[in-house]
């Protein structure tokens, strides 16, 4: 199989992101208009300048009309995409390919989700008519299998495991606390996290990402055109996406300590971007921390930590905002919130701010420098053993 990638062929030249959270005052249309308005301003263009649109949303609308109607788009292609929690990233990926193909000069990828209008506090889904045999487990329950499996395999004491999980939530809340767009903008004490009411397995309320509303968008053009729009574009180094055979639930060899889909997509993305030592070559990573054990396992699947040792790196603060490799410096799904279709683009927005030096000083990461300027974003959708995984790598410098 040939996976050539489109390294340095396209660039992001404008981005926008609404505040995430319980946006009772904003509908889907408002969120889309807010994100689009900020994004075109960021790129210095008008909606008329954009040739085609990709809209990512899982539950907040179907078809391109969901976007063309509120933005009053004049008879242009609008593609609505959905790919579980990787929906926003999938909109971005397809928009990039459209530009790389030469079909369009300037495109927008925009993601939106309005989760808080359902009347339920957790995530609710829309399913096709089924045969009724799917176990009715919630998402936290499906992901809660990771924690005991990891602790069992690597001999981590259950109480220590809980500390590791809480440390991840603590870090992401600390990062979100200084981010004005984040859903939860308060630091939370370790003890509060550890003692929070159980949702599923060992997962407490504070081990789960925020259910929220929000929208984010990017404008993409060919790399050689980028400086027409901005002095500081962000070049796309790698895009990888895999859907697995969903075998985990039926494969006795799967042990719930890894996401094979993530391992494959990471390998693919690293190859496209020429990365051999991600922990030292990446300046930051925005990963899919839907639940705290997910982030723990991802540190190993991405090669940021050796197998069985991520828990020690977490406790040592390696992935803190001022650590070796900042992970989720914007607060992550945990505290920035997770409006599904918008999350992938929100992660890119953090790369947009941090890698270009536009993050406010109080939360600017310090790892960015000569020879180390790449950011990674990652979404996974589904559940352990049955998921899709997306990885992007972006950077402010275009290779020669």
């Amino acid at each position, binding site marked *: 199989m040939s996976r050539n990638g489109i390294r340095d062929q396209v660039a992001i030249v404008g981005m926008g992101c609404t505040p995430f959270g319980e946006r009772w005052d904003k509908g889907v249309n408002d969120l889309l208009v807010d994100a689009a308005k900020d994004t075109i301003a960021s790129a210095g263009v008008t909606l008329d300048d954009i040739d085609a649109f990709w809209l990512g949303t899982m539950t907040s609308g179907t078809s391109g009309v969901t976007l063309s109607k509120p933005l009053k788009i004049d008879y242009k292609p609008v593609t609505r995409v959905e790919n579980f929690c990787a929906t926003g990233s999938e909109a971005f990926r397809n928009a990039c390919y459209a530009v790389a193909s030469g079909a369009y000069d300037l495109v927008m990828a925009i993601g939106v989700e309005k989760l808080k209008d*359902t009347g*339920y*506090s*957790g995530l*609710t889904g829309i*399913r096709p*008519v*089924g*045969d*009724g*045999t799917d*176990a*009715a*487990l*919630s998402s*936290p*329950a499906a992901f*809660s*299998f990771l924690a*005991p*499996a990891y602790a*069992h395999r690597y001999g981590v004491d259950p109480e220590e495991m809980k500390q590791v999980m809480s440390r991840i939530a603590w870090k992401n809340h600390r990062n979100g606390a200084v981010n004005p767009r984040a859903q939860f903008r308060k630091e939370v004490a370790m003890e509060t996290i550890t003692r929070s*009411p*159980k*949702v*599923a*397995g060992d997962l407490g309320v504070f081990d789960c990402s925020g259910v929220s509303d929000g929208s984010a968008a990017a404008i993409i053009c060919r790399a050689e055109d980028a400086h027409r729009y901005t002095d500081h574009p962000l070049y796309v180094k790698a895009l990888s996406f895999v859907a697995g*055979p969903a*075998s985990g*639930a*039926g*494969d*006795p060899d*799967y042990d*719930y300590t890894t996401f094979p889909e993530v391992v494959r997509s990471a390998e693919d993305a690293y190859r496209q971007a020429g990365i051999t030592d991600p922990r030292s070559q990446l300046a930051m990573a925005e990963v899919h921390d839907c639940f705290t054990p997910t982030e723990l396992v991802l540190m190993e699947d991405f090669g940021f930590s050796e197998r069985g040792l991520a828990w020690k790196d977490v406790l040592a603060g390696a992935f803190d905002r001022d650590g070796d490799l900042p992970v989720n410096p914007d607060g992550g799904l945990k505290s920035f919130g997770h409006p599904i279709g918008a999350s992938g683009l929100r992660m890119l927005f953090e790369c947009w701010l941090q890698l270009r030096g536009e993050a406010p000083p109080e939360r600017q990461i310090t790892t960015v420098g000569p020879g180390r300027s790449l950011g990674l974003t990652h979404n996974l959708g589904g559940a352990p053993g049955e998921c899709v995984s997306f990885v992007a790598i972006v950077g402010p410098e275009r290779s020669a």
Partner: protein
Amino acid sequence: MSTGILTWGVYLPYWRLQRSAIGATLGGPSGRGTRSVASYDEDTTTMGVEAARRALAALDGPLPDELVFSTPAPAYLDKTNATAVHAAVGLPEWAGAYDLLGSVRSASAALRVAEVQARTDGRRTLAVVADLRTGLAGGPEERDSGDGAAAFVFGPSDGAAPVAAELVAHAAASSEFLDRWRTPGETDSKVWEERFGQEVYVPLVEEATAGALKRAGLVATDIDHLAVAGLHVRAVQAAGKSLGVRPEAAVADRNAVVGNLGAAQAGLLLADTLEQAGPGELIALVVVADGADVFLVRTTDALPSLREARAAKGLATVADLAVAGRDDLPYARFLTWRDELRREPPRRPDPERPGAPATWRVTPWKSAFTASDCRVCGFRHLPPSRVCLRCRTIDEMDPVRMADAVGQVATFTVDHLAYSPSPPVVGAVVDFDGGGRYRCEMTDVDPERLGIGTRVEMAFRILSTAHGVNNYFWKARPVGTPAGGAGDDGGDEA
């Protein structure tokens, strides 16, 4: 060639309600002992499936090709309930499956029809009787009843399966009078003053018993075991004493521990007696309901060896089952399960109703838990798959029934968020002995005693009910429940 009972199976639910819990909650006198309680995910159909599975587990040779299911508490009207049992135990498509519903007495008809069918047509016929009894809070019905099911296979004796007991004679007496009645849709029965029923029933029982004995050319003192079933307590007691049967022949009921199983009571008593009687002994099964039915049954010389074979297969006896339940069910939870207490529902969307065509397409999987084995590499797929997960070969699969497989918990979780009529949901990943992994819900489980490695078996249950549709599927439960014996098998690595 003799014809009769080839095998039997009894199902009693995991849960017991202490009668004292009722008095403790409502005030008033406290009863003694316990009653059996079907869990929130059980009904007469699922209990009937479990009884039938236990009967068939002890049966060698071909599966029955006719099924009669009887209950006064059917899960559905119009739609046949027996077809769910038929599908779950994997009877052949050509086997007839029929309901005999409504009255308590219809269970007698199920036993009679199956016996006659087996004798006249020479076909193996499965009779399943089940009951789920609720009553109003604080009433004798609630306190003294129980839930459960029993199943019998009638058929001609053959090399593979000798007859355990033969019917010697049957006689009935019928009478139209008002003893007990319930209008459709109600869960509580009304009864007339008990002394009236006793007055009417006793002569009817005497008449039917005399008729049966006469047909058999026997006298009352020939009866070695007298089992009297009926919801009318006084009539049952009085009839037992008025028949001239030797006092030591009286079969003790299990009412103190499991309650009176209503329509399933006769099945329970018959199975219980078959598990204790010697060869060549005469059992009189008397059913008191709107008249009387008397079945005179003689055990055969094969009975002891059949019982040994059952024990060797690990089939629990009625005596074992009766004392094995978990008896700390809170009364409030019992009321909730029976819709007698209006509770705040979980703040989650209601479950969806499963689609009829989607369900029908996967009947072997959904109803009988039939997986698929790859013919090329042997990998086992749950649910069945057309493409092999291991070797990717397409459409080279053999079906394999996994409903009777056992396995162990690979990992598990307690889900406080998922919708359930009785939260939390316990989910587990099960690795089956001989291959295959499946993630499913667990039932009849104490999460505190659940661990990686806990041995589990499959149980036919209701996953959810939506728009009047019972979504029947399989859950895992610790092996040995209701004995609660899972502690010996696992829990060490949690």
